[in-house]
């Protein structure tokens, strides 16, 4: 019953070795390098281009610079990128810390065909992945990196190789031929298991094999009896075998169909995500620009890319104008990167500028296709609940087989015929197998899944419902999950002080410095509100433009208001948009105060701005910018930087009237106005703030004993700042570096034991051995991983899993998908998540909110508790179903409970009450206790089995046997008469069997009596199950304290009773199910036992509460 260990799991371990040690160029390198900020054009170790100087083509080398959270982490949905909302990226303001001198390099003009790719070595996946027959080879291939020269060869050579032409593009014929050869430009969806295989799995899983065996035994008995005893005068007995065999087989079929249906239903939820919006790309074919479906792109096509488009395939950019691309989905970078020679992938929204490129790879051969392929080939880890269910099934099957074989041997030894013994075996199997339980569990999980979906946790596989409840570690992505994924202004520095910006009103609006700063902030920007949002509150208005500018605009609108009007009054005469070379943005405005001079406003990287300034405004007075001021500036800059914030500097200047008037002829190439001396007005720092609910949620996780780890591609400082803010690093805990700084010593001298928190850089992680990683994961309670690559995320997850942790991973990008797949539960983001990540995940947060995970944890723990109750409830009557058989064999009394009645209980009356336990509310401490230990806190423990089988089950058996004996006695057969009567009783030849009162019973009347007793036994179980259901509500506290608020449960009791009545009293049941109508007061026979069960269990729980940790609790708390 237990599945063999997934072969691919082992495989992945082996392959991860390849990751860790790979120094070859390729994906790993690509990610790692790009996470450094050098973008996709990162240099190889040892390659001449590694040096910073070589990055000159990238004026904005982002060496160990501070870079802040930015918009557009993750793959924006199409709509978002088309709408060009406020999240759109913007040229990055590089903000190196003052202590790390910025590398300033000149950059050639931007608009220039890029042919010098020698220096811009792009590390690439193979252009054409070798299609290997063997899966393993494919996996290896995906994890290995092959070099390609598509980006290094001369552009003409490339064209030649691709047989294309930059002016004409491909011809239609060429395109058609290529399309036929390489297929559509789309990701191959992960291989689907054929429906019939899924169905067969349901037919053979769980208890089904045992049931099939029972059915086969029935048919064999039928055949044997027909073959050898066909001349027997009565053939009713073989009919029963036939009947029972058919019933058993149908039970398996129906429950198989049911769970198959449930699974299919949850699969369908996923399909709704695969909404396919047809996309088109502008392609040059036959010398004409035409719109072509993205799926029809082929290698060699010349495509135009524009603002807001997605780049449809891996392309090499040949011409560009300020092109920036959001590669966050691949790299985890949160900012769009400037791109020149570029290979990017299918579905990549690209942000600013325009460009033209030649397609070099399509479909699965793209970089994204390869990662998606890698993710889809990682074996899904088995969910904890399915492990529990497998375990449970094997335990119960073991018990069933054990009892079956034992009593088969006993009955043969007692002289029963083989046929009789086989019948007993069938009976014992049927009694021992909780036929309805697996379906019940499925329904419980489905109910919880539904409930969770309402709370924005969409569960893809039912079994994943519980996984969050078992989770011990959450590896959370930062951007968009912990943070709002929306830049906003958090601090300003002016008048030499840092002011924190919250709601309106904590800033003196009349402060002349603030006015100056606000003027610059309002004028120097291109972001604007989208039209038609008059009614919308400022905070929620959608903004067109770059995230930083949007944040400034929103802040100004909130603090001062009427930004648009202000801009209109001060007409913009000229501007130099931001570019990564000069790292500032300038605009020149008419300013209508008394002073006719034009106003120049400028913002940009603080040190850039400061460099240009001679003076600084202080309380409205212009002062010389002294060294003292510079120190103050440095300090403020550093402070803000340490808070993980992106800092912008602002300055202004009045242009001399003699030269610059409104009639001045502005020219892009003439920047003489920059020669003036500027006045520094202040700094504004921005951050992507944490979501409001996150700190609480993190605290809840902590209380619940779950370790929350941040794994982000972002910069360590930003990561740490956010981690502190949301409580992933708690206030008292310091990292080694922080301690070193506090004590003024170097990091090496700090006692590592003192540090409880750690921020680990991707580079460090790269150097780690497996043991190092283990040590770190064990040692630190609070860990932040920054600048991590997808492979490292995978490594971290595997590291935790190796320690036996149950890991949840949240992520949204394509780069997260291998980790999502590897995690015990992968949680993808519903709004910002890429399709690939959603495909790899087990759960989807519809609102992208970390707090929803807490709901998931709570629901997961609740369902585990409730499933336990549900299993307990269902298992209890197993023993009451088994005992009659044992007494029947051992005491040779008429059968007290028929096989069909057992099925009526297992598949009829027990089902709804068991399901109703899924609606049970948690016992108060759900989120206060530690996650369950998968080795100890099993779904089915020996305590549970002992208590349900050994105690409550026995009480039910006594109740049933009591009812049986009472009815027998009232009809004339006193218990003494019944012992040993079986042979005559069950023989139709005896048409005159005497009872204790001398009456003589025909076979027919005896069987009527027997069936009535069986029905009474059945009813007794139903009555006892009332009490059992009520006691199942709680495992520790008193039922009275818990209350009776679960109306589904109350309904279930009524339903169960009604169903029992229907089974009892419907005419025709006597022949169909051998159920006989009972006298009303026979229902009451089990009531004393039901009361006993209730009182006994209250008592048990009282003792457990009074003596925690006692022997009694050890043995009887399940």
């Amino acid at each position, binding site marked *: 019953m237990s599945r063999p260990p997934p072969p691919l799991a082992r495989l992945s371990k082996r392959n991860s070795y390849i990751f860790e040690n790979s120094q070859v160029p390729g994906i790993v390198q690509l990610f790692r390098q790009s996470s450094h900020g050098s973008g996709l054009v990162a240099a190889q170790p040892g390659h001449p281009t590694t040096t910073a100087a070589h990055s000159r083509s990238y004026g904005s080398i982002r060496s160990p610079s501070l870079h802040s959270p930015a918009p557009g982490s993750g793959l924006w949905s199409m709509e978002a990128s088309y709408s060009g909302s406020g999240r759109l990226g913007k040229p990055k303001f590089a903000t190196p810390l003052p202590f790390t001198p910025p590398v300033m390099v000149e950059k050639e003009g931007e608009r220039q065909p890029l042919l010098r790719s020698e220096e811009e070595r792009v590390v690439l996946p193979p252009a054409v992945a070798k299609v290997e027959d063997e899966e393993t080879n494919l996996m290896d291939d995906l994890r290995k990196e092959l070099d390609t020269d598509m980006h290094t060869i001369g552009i003409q050579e490339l064209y030649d190789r691709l047989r294309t032409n930059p002016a004409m593009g491909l011809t239609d014929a060429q395109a058609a031929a290529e399309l036929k050869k390489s297929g559509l430009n789309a990701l191959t969806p992960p291989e689907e298991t054929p429906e019939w295989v899924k169905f067969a799995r349901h037919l053979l899983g769980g208890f089904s094999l045992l049931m099939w065996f029972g059915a086969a035994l029935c048919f064999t008995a039928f055949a044997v009896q027909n073959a050898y005893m066909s001349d027997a005068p009565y053939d009713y007995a073989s009919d029963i075998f036939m009947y029972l065999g058919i019933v058993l087989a149908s039970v398996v079929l129906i429950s198989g169909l049911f769970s198959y249906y449930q699974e299919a239903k949850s699969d369908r939820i996923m399909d709704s995500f695969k909404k396919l919006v047809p996309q088109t790309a502008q392609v040059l074919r036959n010398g004409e620009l035409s719109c072509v479906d993205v799926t029809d792109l082929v290698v060699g096509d010349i495509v135009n890319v524009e603002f807001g488009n997605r780049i449809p395939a891996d392309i090499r950019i040949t011409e560009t104008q300020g092109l920036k691309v959001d590669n966050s989905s691949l790299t985890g970078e949160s900012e769009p990167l400037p791109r020149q020679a570029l290979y990017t992938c299918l579905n990549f929204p690209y942000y600013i500028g325009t460009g033209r490129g030649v397609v070099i790879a399509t479909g699965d051969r793209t970089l994204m296709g390869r990662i998606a392929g890698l993710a889809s080939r990682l074996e899904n880890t088995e969910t904890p609940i399915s492990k529990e269910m497998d375990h449970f099934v094997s335990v119960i099957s*073991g018990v069933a087989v054990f009892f079956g074989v034992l009593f088969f041997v006993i009955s043969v030894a007692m002289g029963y015929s083989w046929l009789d013994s086989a019948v007993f075996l069938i009976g014992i199997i049927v009694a021992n197998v909780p036929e309805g339980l697996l379906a019940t569990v499925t329904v419980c999980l489905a109910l919880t899944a539904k409930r969770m979906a309402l709370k924005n946790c969409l569960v893809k596989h039912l079994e994943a419902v519980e996984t969050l409840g078992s989770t011990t570690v959450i590896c959370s992505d930062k951007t968009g999950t912990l943070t709002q994924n929306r830049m906003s202004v958090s601090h300003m520095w002016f008048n030499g002080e840092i002011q924190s910006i919250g709601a309106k009103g904590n800033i003196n609006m009349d402060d002349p410095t603030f006015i100056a700063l606000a003027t610059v902030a309002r004028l120097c920007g291109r972001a604007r509100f989208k039209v038609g949002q008059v009614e919308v509150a400022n905070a929620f208005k959608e903004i067109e433009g770059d995230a930083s500018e949007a944040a400034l605009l929103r802040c100004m609108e909130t603090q001062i208001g009427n930004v648009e009007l202000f801009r209109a009054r001060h007409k913009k005469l000229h501007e130099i948009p931001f570019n990564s070379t000069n790292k500032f943005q300038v605009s020149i405005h008419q300013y209508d105060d008394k002073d006719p001079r034009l106003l120049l406003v400028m913002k940009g990287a603080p040190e850039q701005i400061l460099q240009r300034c001679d003076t600084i405004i202080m309380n409205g007075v212009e002062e010389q910018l002294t060294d003292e001021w510079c120190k103050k500036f440095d300090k403020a800059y550093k402070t803000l930087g340490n808070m993980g914030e992106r800092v912008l500097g602002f300055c202004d200047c009045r242009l001399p009237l003699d030269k610059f008037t409104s009639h001045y002829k502005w020219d892009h190439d003439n920047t003489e106005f920059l020669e003036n001396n500027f006045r520094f007005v202040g700094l504004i720092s921005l951050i992507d703030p944490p979501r409001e609910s996150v700190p609480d949620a993190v605290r809840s996780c902590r209380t619940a004993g779950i370790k929350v780890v941040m794994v982000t591609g972002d910069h360590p400082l930003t990561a740490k700042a956010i981690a502190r803010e949301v409580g992933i690093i708690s206030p008292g805990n310091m990292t080694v570096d922080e301690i070193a700084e506090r004590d003024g010593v170097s990091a090496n001298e700090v006692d590592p034991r003192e540090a409880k928190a750690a921020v680990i850089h991707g580079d460090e992680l790269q150097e780690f051995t497996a043991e190092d990683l283990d040590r770190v994961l064990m040692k630190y309670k609070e860990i932040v991983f920054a600048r991590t690559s997808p492979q490292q995320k995978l490594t971290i997850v595997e590291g935790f899993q190796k320690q036996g942790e149950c890991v949840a991973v949240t992520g949204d990008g394509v780069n997260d998908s291998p980790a999502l797949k590897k995690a015990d539960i992968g949680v993808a983001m519903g709004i910002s998540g890429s399709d690939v990540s959603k495909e790899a995940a087990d759960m989807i947060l519809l609102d992208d909110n970390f707090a929803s995970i807490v709901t998931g944890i709570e629901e997961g723990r609740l369902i585990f508790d409730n499933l336990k109750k549900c299993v307990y409830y269902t298992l209890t009557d197993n023993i009451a179903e088994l005992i009659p058989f044992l007494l029947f064999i051992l005491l040779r009394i008429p059968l007290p409970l028929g096989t069909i009645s057992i099925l009526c209980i297992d598949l009829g009356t027990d089902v709804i009450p068991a399901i109703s336990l899924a609606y049970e509310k948690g016992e108060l401490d759900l989120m206060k206790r530690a996650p369950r230990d998968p080795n100890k806190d099993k779904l089915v423990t020996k305590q549970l089995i002992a208590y349900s089988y*050994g105690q409550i089950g026995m009480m039910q058996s006594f109740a049933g046997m009591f009812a049986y004996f009472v009815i027998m006695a009232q009809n004339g057969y006193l218990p003494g008469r019944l012992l040993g009567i079986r042979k005559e009783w069950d023989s139709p030849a005896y048409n005159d069997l005497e009872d204790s009162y001398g009456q003589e019973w025909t076979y027919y009347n005896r069987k009527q009596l027997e069936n009535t007793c069986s029905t009474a036994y059945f009813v007794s179980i139903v009555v006892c199950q009332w009490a059992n259901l009520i006691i199942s509500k709680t495992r520790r506290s008193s039922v009275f304290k818990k209350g009776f608020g679960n109306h589904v449960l109350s309904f279930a009791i009524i339903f169960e009773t009604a169903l029992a009545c229907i089974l009892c009293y419907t005419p025709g049941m006597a022949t169909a199910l051998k159920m006989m109508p009972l006298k009303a007061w026979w229902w009451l026979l089990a009531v004393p036992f039901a009361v006993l069960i209730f009182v006994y269990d209250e008592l048990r729980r009282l003792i457990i509460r009074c003596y925690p940790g006692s022997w009694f609790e050890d043995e009887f708390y399940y």
Partner: protein
Amino acid sequence: MGKEESNGGKNYTGYDDRFSTYVWNSETRQFFGRTGLAWAKLTIFYTIFYIGLAAFAGLCYFLFSKTLTEEHPRWMLGDSLIGTNPGMGYRPMPDPDTNAGSTLIWYTLGKRSDAKFWYRQLDEYVTGVEQSVYNSDVLSCERDMKATNEKSCRVEVSQFGNVCTKANKFGYESGDPCILLKLNRIFGWEPECYGINENGQYDKKLLDDDLNEAEGMPSSLKTYIFSNVNSISDDAKRANFLSTIWITCNGEAKPDQENLGTFAYFPSNRQGISGKYFPYHKQPGYQSPFIFVQLKNPMRDVLINVECKAWAKNIIHDRINRLGSVRFEILIDS
């Protein structure tokens, strides 16, 4: 199963890695996961628990048994599942230990030990009935006397004549076996006989009607009843004669009927069981009334299905469920 366990052990690090360690862990001195002391405690607990539970159930049953009497079952006739439609029994029967499901009377003619197995059963049965002569609780019901709720009527063995007797070995050795037929005892059940009104008196018209309505009654029985009634002069005697549960036997199917010879019923003056023996009230010394039917010279070496039915107004025949009738087979090898 062993394999399963070891598999489970692999996947489940939580369970002891090896089953043998689980059985006996020498480190913790645990046997099946518990120490000796823990097992002892548990044993004591469960002993007390089950004793307590058994006592509780015993108490329940004890209280319940107070509602029972020895005199009669708690439920009778229609209230009980035994119902109001008696079945029939026959003797001799095959050995219950070796042939529990069979109803075949099978012996080889001339093989003494074979036949003895069958007639000895009848011997014993008749001897038991004869013993009741010494039981003063049993009335010897002469004439119109009838059993009361306290006293039952004696079954006179002499009425069966000298054919189906011990001396005659009940015809088994001669190949004309006698079969004993009786009606199942149902507490308080009384027959409603044909032709007798509520007052227990003979009613000619009623008899005609009753016999016409009696579905499936063999015409031979009707003729038998009419001719006997007509030959009796006195209405009281007619009533006494008619106060009978008539019994007929026949082959189950056409070939059976052809293979069977004729039947002889004993007592010869009444082809059935007299109503005076009813009702059964668990009277002391109660003997079930019965008749003998003799199969005269049935076909040898052929298995013959015989079906006997009891006839009264309140006996309904149900062949499948063997109500109001009995069925057996006979095979006499020559």
